[in-house]
């Protein structure tokens, strides 16, 4: 019994060591990213590695870490050795800037407010769009079931809330009470609030509940592809709110590890036509005009407003809308 067990352990160990032998590489950076970007960067990274090899003659390994971006920011503050961050929340990079990990003026370090791509809350409806859902108004109608996650736990749903609110404000000439009533009538049409975007997707696509799923436009393409046999259709409303995907060099780590140069090249690469094309193929909107024209079919015209314009910035939104007892609490009664 005893010796056999030991042999088995040794064999497992040997097998594992064989598998884990690291690839030899001259440069290595760690890209700490949000939870659902794995396949996107799995597509982007080899292209960059090739380019870096061609430009400098050095090989580069790009390691990826994916989790909720607030959790990632916290981990970096506690020592996760990120060289670059690619997040889906501006506020999470601000946290890093406050903690001294990222340059204070990080938004000026790269074009387009350091956001190489962006998206917006959009809709996914059932085959043939039987309930004729084209815009936010249609979501407030009686008899329409709307699916999005709980805005208390999901950043994705907060964008949905803000987009609906901004639309109603615009329509009612800035009347706050009317906007709140409008958002409340949409919330009343939600049969179940899931924890996060993925669970809401499962509710809509796998359990077949609801007439419309609201999530980032960048997500709707992937979901439609994943559940191809359901023939879900993408719908972009007339107006929505800008959701940025900001990037930054984690200067503190990059300088001590001597990776600042490759980190900068990596983030610059995200703005190059090759990278912008990959981003657009994955249904992210990009600032590059030529690429946008190339994928015009993926990106219907939409009027985008920003959190700064409509709500006076994230701090104010947090305080007025999302804080305990804020406006969100008055329109959202969790069933």
């Amino acid at each position, binding site marked *: 019994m005893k010796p056999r067990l030991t042999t088995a352990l040794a064999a497992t160990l040997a097998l594992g060591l064989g*598998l884990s032998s690291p690839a030899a590489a001259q440069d290595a950076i760690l890209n700490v990213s949000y939870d659902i970007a794995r*396949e996107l960067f799995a597509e982007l990274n080899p292209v960059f590695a090739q380019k870096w090899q061609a430009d400098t003659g050095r090989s580069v390994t790009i390691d990826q*870490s994916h989790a909720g971006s607030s959790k990632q920011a916290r981990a970096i503050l*506690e020592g*996760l050795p990120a060289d670059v961050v690619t997040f889906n929340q501006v506020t999470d990079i601000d946290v890093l800037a406050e903690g001294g990990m990222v340059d204070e003026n990080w938004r000026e370090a790269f074009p387009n407010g350091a956001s190489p791509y962006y998206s917006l809350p959009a809709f996914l409806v059932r085959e043939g769009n039987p309930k004729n859902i084209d815009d936010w108004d249609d979501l407030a109608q009686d008899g329409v079931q709307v699916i999005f996650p709980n805005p208390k736990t999901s950043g994705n749903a907060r964008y949905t809330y803000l987009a609906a609110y901004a639309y109603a404000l615009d329509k009612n000439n800035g009347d706050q009470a009317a906007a709140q009533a409008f958002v409340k009538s949409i919330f009343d049409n939600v049969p179940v609030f899931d924890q996060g975007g993925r669970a809401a997707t499962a509710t809509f696509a796998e359990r077949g509940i609801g007439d419309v799923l609201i999530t980032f436009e960048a997500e709707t393409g992937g979901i439609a592809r994943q559940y191809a046999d359901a023939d879900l259709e993408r719908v972009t409303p007339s107006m929505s709110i800008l959701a940025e995907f900001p990037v930054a060099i984690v200067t503190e780590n990059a300088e001590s590890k001597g990776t600042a140069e490759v980190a900068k090249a990596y983030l610059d690469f995200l703005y190059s036509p090759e990278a912008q094309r990959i981003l657009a193929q994955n249904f992210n909107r990009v600032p590059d005009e030529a690429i946008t024209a190339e994928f015009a079919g993926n990106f219907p015209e939409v009027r985008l407003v920003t959190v700064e314009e409509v709500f006076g910035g994230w701090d104010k939104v947090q305080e007025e809308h999302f804080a305990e007892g804020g406006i969100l609490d008055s329109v959202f009664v969790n069933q």
Partner: protein
Amino acid sequence: MNAMTSGSARPGRHVPLLLIALAITLTAVVVAVPLVYILWRALSEGFAVFAQNILAPDTLHAIWLTTLVAVITLPVNLAVGIAAAWLIARFTFPGRKALLTLIELPFSISPIIAGVCYLLLYGRQGLLGPALAEADVTVLFALPGIVMVTLFVTSPFVTREVLPLMQAQGSEQEQAALTLGATGWQVFRRVTLPNIRWALLYGAVLATARAVGEFGAVSVVSGAIRGQTNTLPLQVELLFNDLNTVGAFAAASTLTVIALIVLVVKTLVEGRART
């Protein structure tokens, strides 16, 4: 028909049947169906796709890392568990009850709290963080951190299994061995260990199962770097978040298979322990 008419027999016969039916239904809905469903979904696009998902470098590395963590934590758990059980069973000393409570503490606190404690203690902004950074020692977001939190959550198992047995058996045999001139090591090898071996193995199996499956605590300290610090449970979540359902279920089925093997070992051990 006869049974129907004799009123007194009815409740006595139907209640147990009803309860059995309820138990079977619950077991099926809560345990069996999800387990079968995992395997079914993992294989839904054919065995080739399943194998390809399992053999994806990141998933393979996650399997290896999870195995490594289990292999490192097991001997530590065995040694510390036996030592603690022996200390508590054979000696009376001030603080004995407190020590027992301390050993059981990881059972009662949520693993995520363990993870956060480690973060606050060993993190860059934590109590020991600056000193560790000075000494160039990496604990968090690397193997040491993962092993340490896994040890934290698995530490009570061996002691919990071995201690009651040691207490029940008493120390007569060990004392007899000592009077016959055995050394401490001989007593341990020839008397103590054979007496507790099944309980020890049982504890080891439980601790290993927990080490392999631990999610919450590891999730906090791992940093989830793919191909480096992503354990199998974290990999399952990652693949699921990617809408890679087959990949997620393939990874999950690997975990399930490990769990089933552990379960079979446990059942065998229980059988042996009773005889």
